[in-house]
């Protein structure tokens, strides 16, 4: 991961993911400000719409890739000791993996038996 996400490649990944994230975030912000979900049924029905589900499922790995590149860049500047940096990156990788899988699980389950 770290070798693939370094240098020019990471720079490009950061910019392409940024564009997708910006579009989705602005859409979500406008949606939640104009019509916040009123109850569980409405919220689940909204998430389980095919385009919303797909958009959110794509959002998860794209967000994690963007966060990973940014976090790694910051840690390279502030966590100068190799051991500390590796410990923080490993912890982050597990938290990212767990968060991403948990979010994907929730999005897929919302679409089942809806």
């Amino acid at each position: 991961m770290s070798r693939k996400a370094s240098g020019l490649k990471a720079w490009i990944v950061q910019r392409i993911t940024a564009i997708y994230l910006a579009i989705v975030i602005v859409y979500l912000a406008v949606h939640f400000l104009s019509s916040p979900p009123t109850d569980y049924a409405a919220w689940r029905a909204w998430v389980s719409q095919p385009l919303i589900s797909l958009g959110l499922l794509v959002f998860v790995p794209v967000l994690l890739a963007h966060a990973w590149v940014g976090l790694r860049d910051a840690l390279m500047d502030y966590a100068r000791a190799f051991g500390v940096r590796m410990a923080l990156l490993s912890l982050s990788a597990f938290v990212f993996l767990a968060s991403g899988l948990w979010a994907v699980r929730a999005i897929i389950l919302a679409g089942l038996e809806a």
Partner: protein
Amino acid sequence: MQAGQALYCDALHKGEERALTAERPVFLRLWQIHLPPTGLVSILHRVSGLLLVLSIPVAAALLGLSLAGPKGFATVAAIFEHWLGQAGLVLLAWSLVHHLFAGLRHLLLDIGAGVELGTARRSARVATLAAPLVVLLGWGLLQ
């Protein structure tokens, strides 16, 4: 960046490569550091990014809970109505908006738009000031 490159080239030309690898000065008296607007928007881009990273596991947990059933949805709604939840939301909203504006500014600079010093300083001020204003506006819309 360009000034840094110029310094780097200067050092190389003078045969002072050693100075680049030597122990660098560290100045961490935060209250004495005066950042230009471009430096401020940049460090806040990092701070907001780190806050957003910290919110990832929380957001995943809340998403799962809100979709787990009517009870979970009610719990998440109650968290967002609590003052602590609201404070967290405001901080998250600022992080998101600042990161978005600073990021868009960054993308424009990447394609060579607004790289003149005066323009870059103005866009830095605009991005830094616009973020809290947009959060206030969103807050007003929700009331």
